[in-house]
Structure formats: structure tokens, C-alpha cells
């Protein structure tokens, strides 16, 4: 019945308007599409293109086609040249995944706690909401340098004061945990903000009804808040995971570029491309990072049915 009611009375004319609107929309979108094609599409195409060549960054014109040789290639002498055969690359993948899983998990838990606290009515919560964004508002490069000083073993508050002169950043095995701590410190507030936005859209009368039925606060959280919060939470999770997978700045600033190459996939790509001038191999690594992130997004979206609207 409802379907019938919503069908237009004069279908021909309506379609005309819709078609005209669609045409108009295309024209309005065109500048944006061209801009995207130029600033994102073309570089992406070039990256895919160069990933099939052996080329040097300083002279990209002299290149030779190697197919997938940048990914996997063994010479007749048994020397492995593809980056997928490089244990350093897999170390970077392992570290990036560890970094992503642990930091996003901690940020979600802490972000949820902070959001629940800030969502409840108390005096001065407006100030608190603004204040909690401070770590997130500081540029990453600045906060990373700040933390590098804190971790310094001879004068840092943490390195000397709390850890008693241990150089945590010197060793990539311990450094990864120090980096996770920095990322959690920095991004928890962003996570809290996203969750808070979700919390505020939940109807208040629902909790009143739950109170009447005698449900405990604990039951209310697990049975009402969490299920209703799921869409907002998942969108936040996707955003944070993507950010964490392509992390680059804190590694580069706190560890230096050589060690950053063994702790993040993007650091590895930068080293191949910039330090080693391997335009082809570096592009191939970038393609791999792109594909990996793409696959993870697809898994997220399909498995959890995330809706972005």
C-alpha cells in the first residue's frame, strides 16, 4: 500500500526532472572529479605503472620493464631481489599490524570509557570535552618529538626518571611499545569524540524505560548502549585502523628513517623509494600497502556491514 502511495502521479514529468537533476549533478561534480583524477588518480596510476619497472628515482626516464620482478624475483645465482623475499619487509608488516591491533584496541576501550564519562551530566563537562582534544590537536610531528625527548635515557622524564636510564627507542622491539603508547595518548580523544557523537544520538527515554523495568546500569550498557552504538563504533574503528596501518610520522620522527623502515610499511616504502632511489621497487611496495589496506577495508565493511551514511 505504502509503495503505491509513494509512486509519483505523473511519472513522465518526474523522470524528466530527475534526469535533469542528475545531469546538473554531473556538471556540478565535474570539477571535483577532475581535481581528484589529477591529484589522486594520476599519481596512483603512475605508482602502479612504475611498480612494473626497474627504475632509478634520479633518472626515471631510463627504465626497463621487469613485470612483477619487483615483487618476487630470484636471479640465476639464487639471489632474491623481490621485496616480498626480504625479511625486513615482513618485519615491517608484522610491526605495523601489531601497532594497529594493539593501539586501536586500547584507543577504543579508553575512548569508550572517556565518552561515557563525558556524556553523563556533571559540572564543567563542556570544558572537559574541549580539553580532551588537546593531544589530538597537537601536530603529530611535534608530539612525536616531544615524546622522543621524554623517552631520552639521559635527560627524559620517562627514560631517565621512570625507566631508570633505559633507551627504549634504541631497540625496535621495545620501541614499538613506546610508539603504541604515544599513539594511544594522542588518538584516544579522537576516538572518544566519535563515540560521544554516537552516544548523544541515543534516545534518553529508552534508558528511563529500562530503569522502570529494573535493568541495572551494567545490563543497560551491554544490552542497549553497545548494540545501538555499533554503527558509530564501527565507522570509528575503520577510520582508526586505516590511519594506523599507514602510520609513518611518529616512526620517522622518533626512530629515524633507517629504523622506521623496519617498524612501518610506509617507512619501508620511503626507504626504498627515497634513500635507495629504487623507484620501481618503492612503487611496488606502495602498491602492496595500498592493496593490503584495501583488503582490510573490504573485510571490515562486509563482515561488520558498516554503513557510512
Amino acid at each position, binding site marked *: 500500500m505504502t509503495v503505491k502511495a509513494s509512486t509519483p502521479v505523473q511519472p513522465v514529468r518526474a523522470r524528466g526532472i530527475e534526469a535533469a537533476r542528475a545531469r546538473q549533478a554531473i556538471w556540478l561534480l565535474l570539477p571535483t572529479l577532475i581535481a581528484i583524477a589529477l591529484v589522486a588518480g594520476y599519481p596512483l596510476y603512475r605508482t602502479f605503472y612504475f611498480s612494473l619497472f626497474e627504475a632509478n628515482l634520479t633518472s626515471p626516464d631510463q627504465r626497463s620493464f621487469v613485470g612483477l620482478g619487483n615483487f618476487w624475483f630470484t636471479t640465476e645465482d639464487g639471489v632474491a631481489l623481490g621485496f616480498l623475499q626480504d625479511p625486513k619487509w615482513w618485519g615491517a608488516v608484522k610491526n605495523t599490524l601489531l601497532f594497529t591491533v594493539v593501539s586501536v584496541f586500547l584507543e577504543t576501550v579508553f575512548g569508550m570509557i572517556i565518552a561515557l564519562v563525558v556524556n553523563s551530566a556533571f559540572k564543567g563537562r563542556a570544558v572537559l570535552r574541549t580539553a580532551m582534544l588537546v593531544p589530538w590537536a597537537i601536530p603529530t610531528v611535534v608530539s612525536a618529538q616531544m615524546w622522543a625527548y621524554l623517552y631520552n635515557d*639521559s635527560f627524559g622524564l620517562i627514560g631517565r626518571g621512570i625507566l631508570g636510564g633505559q633507551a627504549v627507542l634504541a631497540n625496535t622491539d621495545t620501541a614499538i611499545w613506546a610508539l603504541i603508547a604515544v599513539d594511544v595518548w594522542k588518538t584516544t580523544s579522537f576516538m572518544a569524540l566519535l563515540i560521544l557523537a554516537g552516544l548523544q544520538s541515543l534516545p534518553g527515554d529508552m534508558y528511563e524505560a529500562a530503569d522502570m523495568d529494573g535493568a541495572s546500569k551494567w545490563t543497560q550498557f551491554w544490552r542497549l548502549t553497545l548494540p545501538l552504538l555499533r554503527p558509530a563504533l564501527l565507522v570509528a574503528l575503520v577510520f582508526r585502523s586505516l590511519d594506523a596501518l599507514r602510520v609513518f610520522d611518529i616512526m620517522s620522527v622518533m626512530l629515524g*628513517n633507517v629504523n622506521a623502515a623496519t617498524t612501518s610499511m610506509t617507512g619501508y616504502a620511503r626507504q626504498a623509494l627515497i634513500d635507495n632511489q629504487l623507484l620501481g621497487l618503492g612503487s611496488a611496495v606502495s602498491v602492496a600497502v595500498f592493496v593490503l589496506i584495501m583488503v582490510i577495508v573490504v573485510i571490515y565493511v562486509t563482515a561488520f556491514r558498516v554503513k557510512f551514511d
Partner: protein
Amino acid sequence: MKKVIALITLTAAITATSNASAVTLTLACGAVGQELQLCKDGAARWAKKTGNEVKIFESPNLTNDRLGLYQQQLAAKSSDIDVYQLDVVWPGLLSQHFVDLKGKVPAAEVSAHFKGIIDANTVNGKLVALPWFTDAGLLYYRTDLLKKYGFTAAPKTWTEMALMAKKIQDGERKSNKAFTGFVFQGKNYEGLTCDALEWVVSFGGGTIVDSTGKVTINNPQAAKALDTAASWIKSISPAGVTTYDEEAARGIFQAGNAAFMRNWPYAWALGQGKDSKVAGKIGVAPLPSGGSRNAATLGGWQLGVSAYSKNQAAAIDLVRYLAGPQEQKVRAIEGAYNPTIQSLYKDQDVLKANPFFGSLYSVFTSAVARPSGPTKGKYNQVSQAFSSTVSDVLNGKSKGQAAVAKLAGDINRIKGRGW
């Protein structure tokens, strides 16, 4: 009204012509220690002399970062920077982007420099850059502390150095908890390659890759050198030394918190400065031997003219001026930057400011080159593999023998079908 317009046009025309003869050049300088100030001063003197203008482009401190930035500029054929300051290991890597100075600079002017450094800047017969200053690793020590603990001379071997450092450190710790025996460049970057090459060569372990391109690092002497260095960590060097670069090490030494330091000559002039707590108490010696010889890594910076510069003639003139004897003398006196012109080592003013220049002359002339020649465009990868391996040994992740064996494999992988 017409008169006014005519007058304005005329003035504009005159200004335009006078501007056309004077050019604005951009010079990329380093910023380690006093480098930036000296670079600005030198450029200003040339600008005043010639009536041109020089803009200074500040480069990142770490040589690896600087290379990355320069490569992007050069690959894009950008004319933004006219004159680049080049590390001694770069000419092979970047030669095609620079003007051939052979024939454009008088031969006598070229031959006034050390031959070895001119050779390092010559790639396939092309003179890529003119030497500006040379560098070699040195051992800095505290003369007052050596005397206090009963030592009469600087250490001759690494073993001796470690013993002295330990004794001084134990004594000084009683009054100064932050005191440490020995600081060096332990961060995983090009600086560590320089330091570790000195250890390996001093133990008779070769130069990573020999002059014919053969990978030689997998030998017991090299392994022993790395194990020796690893034994310093937490005994005479702080754990954090594996995150120090030149300036971090200098900061600790200059604050009076270290007995020994490995660094480049530039640290001398700063150590004698007004804000230095150790002024007048610094001694300089060749780096200790590991049983084979004393070894110092050859460093140094050159000036090259970008092939994409729009004012090449003026840029060449600037390079000739900055690399010339007058400017090198000023830099030697004010900043302890080692001249590349032989005659300046007999100059009384230079020797007065840097007493060790005369006695350590042989250290500068016999410095060991990093294997940038034989490894050509892949030098950076070799250096990274080497410094990462050394870093692992220093951090206790691996032991010398296993580390050099694995490193040889890594370098052969980088070599691939050949250098």
C-alpha cells in the same frame, strides 16, 4: 602627465637592467654545529664582492635526510637550488645532475686540493664538485680528567681506551651521576657506518666491500671489532648512545659529562667556545687502534653546481670563491673545518686556532674512504645494511660473527647482478 609616465618608465627600465646583471642564487647549506652561520657569512662576502644576492636554503642535519630532499629536487629538474653541498659519498650517485667543472675552473685551482678528494669527486672523468672541507674521525678526550686519574697520554688502543674510560667514569660518578666514559654516533644512520668502519678497519677487518667490488665483511676481525664495540654499551657508554648522532654526542661531551668522544673536527672550535664547560680541557688524538692500525673515516663536503641552475656562470663563481683558499682559511680558524687545500696546513693562523691540525695531518691525509666508489649507486643500501647490522650488535640482538655472516648475505643480495 606624459612626462611623469616617461620618467617612471625610464626609472623602471634602469632598475630592470641593473637587476639583470645581478643575479640571485640559492645555496643549500648544512646546519650541523656552526655550519649554517659560516655558510651564510661566506655567501654574504661573495655577494658583497660581486653585487649578487645569495639565498640560503637550510638542509636537514642528518645526511640521509638531506640526500632524500636533494634527490627529489634533482629528479624534478628543479632550478630552485643553484649550488648544493654534497657529501663525499654522493658524487657517484648524483653525477648526472651536476655541471662538469673541469675546464670551467682553472686547472691550478683544482690541483691545489688534496688529490684523493679531487679523485672522489671525479666520476667518469667529470669533475662533479669542488672540495669545501674534509673530515676524519677523531678521538676527543678530557685532558684534566686524564691527569686527575693518573694517565699521561691519550689511549693508543681500544682496550686501553675502555680501561681509562671505566676508571674515570667510576670516579666521576661519585659526584656526577650523569657522567659517562665514551660517547660516539650510535644511532642507526650514516654516522654509525662511519664510526663502525673505523672499528672494523682498526681491527684489520677490511672496508666492507673492497675496491674490486667483492664483499669482504664476513671475517673474524670484523666480528671481533663489532663485539668489542658492543661491550662498551652500558659499561663505558650509556644505553642511549645507540640513539645519538654527532650533535647529541657533542652535547654530552661539551656539558662535561663524558671522558672520551668520537667526533669530527668541527667539534673542536665549539668545544673551545664561551658556552662550553670543557673549554681549555680538550685534547685531540687519532682514534685508537684495534691491533692493526689507527683508522679514521674520510668525510667531508663539496660544492657542486646544479645542471638545472639558470645562472650557472655565477654559481660556478660562487663555488670557486667558497672553495678557495681565503674562505677555507676563515672556516678553518672560526669553525675548525679542515681545509682541502694542502698549503693551508702550513698557515700559522690556521695552526694557532687548531693546534692539532699539524700533528694529526697524517690522520686527515690517510683517512679511510667508505666503499661508495665500488658500490656506486647502491652505496646507500650497503651503508644501511651495515649500520643496521652494527645497530643490532650494539643493542645485543646479535653477536659479531653471526651478524657479519648475515650482513655478507644481505650485501650480496643488494649487489644482485653487480654494482
